[in-house]
């Protein structure tokens, strides 16, 4: 596959050069329009078995579209460097589409570059586009927490101790929401289930992640889930401790043949490919995209061998409920873990409600604090 794309790329360059020689200006413009250069920028390694891998896989699918050339940079920190990386892709390589895939790239980096290059379209993962910000931005995210809810249902059926564990990286709204959804999913099976959380304090700190899983196992948690750059260490450590695990962002089933339950996968390629088709057709692109099960942006991996038929049925039913809108995760009454009512009875926050984007509380039954 890789060889094929290289050959076609070279062939394309040759034809561009020939055209440029015959009809200087016009055909050069046309050739430039034919080939669309897309730049993918990642904060970590592209093969991390987690978040960045999920993004890179999607960008790789973009590269398969005819006449699209993909350029990539990994390990780009969220400093002035990412601005220069975007600029360099645009100025030196003629990129017209930028996939800025880390949360922290948005404000101020993507915002500034989008204002500066109005003819380039920026895709940003995890940010929230607001009125007044440049319109050549598509801020995308998917309700991976829907998948965590399904993970929670599977975990709720699996647990014998009634105690689940969750290893989150840092206290930000998206992660608080993932923890809450996982817990609410489990509590839909048995309201007495609790989730113990252990913050690792950073996105990629393998030793702390392994320690967190061991501590959770010592406290009697028998299923763990997580939200961090790569669930690899969490899933592998859980398998060694003989407890069950759920993953996120990519399919980690190969890492834990016995204890893996399921993974909530974000599939960004659906959005990327569709958007590029729209761009080529001259249609406008949306500024915010929040995907879910319905549009295929959130998927569940295959359930692991340990998942019972009953759990499978419950998970599938919940998935169907989320799909047809009959199930909303954040339906009152929900209390936080200090006993305050955060979602009153009778209130429902739909999955795209701004309320859920600002979550700063942990649901009742979560043992831990929303700050560290």
């Amino acid at each position, binding site marked *: 596959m890789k060889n094929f794309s290289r050959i076609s790329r070279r062939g394309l360059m040759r034809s561009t050069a020939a055209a440029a020689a015959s009809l200087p200006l016009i055909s050069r413009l046309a050739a430039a329009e034919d080939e669309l250069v897309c730049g993918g920028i990642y904060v970590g390694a592209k093969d991390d078995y987690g978040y960045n*891998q999920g993004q890179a896989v999607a960008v790789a699918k973009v590269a398969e579209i005819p006449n699209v050339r993909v350029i990539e940079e990994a390990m780009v920190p969220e400093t002035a460097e990412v601005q220069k990386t975007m600029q360099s892709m645009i100025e030196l390589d003629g990129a017209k589409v930028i996939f800025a895939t880390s949360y922290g790239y948005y404000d101020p980096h993507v915002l500034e570059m989008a204002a500066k290059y109005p003819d380039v379209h920026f895709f940003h993962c995890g940010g929230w586009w607001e009125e007044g910000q440049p319109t050549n931005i598509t801020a995308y995210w998917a309700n991976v927490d829907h998948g965590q809810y399904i993970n929670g249902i599977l975990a709720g059926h699996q647990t014998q101790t009634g105690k689940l564990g969750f290893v989150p990286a840092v206290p930000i709204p998206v992660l608080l929401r993932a923890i809450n959804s996982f817990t609410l999913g489990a509590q839909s099976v048995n309201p007495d289930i609790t989730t113990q959380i252990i913050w690792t304090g950073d996105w990629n700190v393998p030793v702390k992640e392994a*320690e*967190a899983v*061991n*501590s959770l196992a010592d406290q009697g948690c*028998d299923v763990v889930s997580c939200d961090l750059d790569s669930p690899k260490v969490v899933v*592998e450590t859980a398998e060694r401790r003989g407890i069950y695990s759920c993953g996120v962002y990519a399919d980690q089933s190969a890492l834990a043949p016995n204890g893996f339950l399921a993974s909530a996968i974000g599939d960004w390629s659906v959005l990327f490919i569709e958007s590029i088709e729209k761009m080529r057709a001259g249609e406008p692109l949306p500024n915010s995209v929040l995907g879910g099960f319905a549009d295929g942006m959130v998927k569940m991996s295959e359930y692991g061998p340990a998942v019972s038929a009953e759990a499978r049925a419950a998970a599938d039913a919940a998935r169907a409920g989320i799909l047809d809108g009959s199930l909303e995760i954040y339906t009152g009454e929900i209390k936080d873990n200090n006993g305050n009512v955060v979602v009153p009875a009778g209130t429902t926050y739909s999955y795209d409600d701004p309320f859920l984007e600002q979550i700063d509380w942990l649901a009742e039954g979560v043992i831990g604090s929303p700050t560290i």
Partner: protein
Amino acid sequence: METTEALGWIGVPLAVLSGAIRVGTPFLYVSLGECITEKGGRINVGQEGILVMGAMVGFAVSYLSGSPWLGVLAAAGAGSLLGMMHALFCSARRVNDIAIGIALMLFGSGLAFFFGKPFLNPSAPQLPAIPFGWWSDSPQIRSALEINLLFIIGLGLVPLISWGFRYTRWGLMLRTVGDSRDAALSLGIPINRVRLVATMLGGALSGIGGAFLSLYYPGSWNEGLSSLQGLMAVVLVIFARWDPVRCLWAALLFGGAGALAPALQSVGVTTGYQLIAAAPYVLTLAIMIMTSSPRRGLVGAPGELVLNR
């Protein structure tokens, strides 16, 4: 899979104990290696890069050959090569060993990341552990007492190195070179060669420490694997005041402190997470302040060490 009883607060000392061993083993290897290096009068801050390199090479060789022990050997080899680089660069006149160390930290990590890309995704065969907890019914205790052979080897190395420093001819030469260049010169000891061997040994041990990270705990290759543990181990040697036995205690202490924060969170202590993890540095600083004095260098420090000016 079996039901386990929650341990509650008893889990904290258990986690700290088992964490001290699991998290402390790489500290032990790097600090023993650095101890040997510094006894010769040179400091190698580049142990961080060597640790990362050892982790990558160990993992890669284990994955490709199927034998984790071959991986450990390869990691030791790679470590000693980087150690050799440090020694050779520093034996040139006027070259600063700390600066070379920082450059080696960048170079070693860079090289490891470069060649480690294909090994980020796979899983490699892991080092086996010895189940010292077979007698217990509690899975927590059984898990806590699963001890890796590398830790036991490390335990064995401690008295061996102590003895080597004190009673072997080579140990005497090393200490002479480290304490006084002039004395070593007048005795006709080949200073650079002794330091070369010491730094290579130190690098080999750090490489093994890295292999422990990627082949046992946490047990996979990842670019964030070390998170500056190699650099902390350099500090740890000062904490241990250049004594291998104290290196062992210090490594266990640093490891235990790393395990304390997650363990406390699991019983509901959630504030000050980052501060608890920093406790060993406060302790080290306190020890340095107590054992230093404006009139002489650090107590127990080899005389030729740059730290001793």
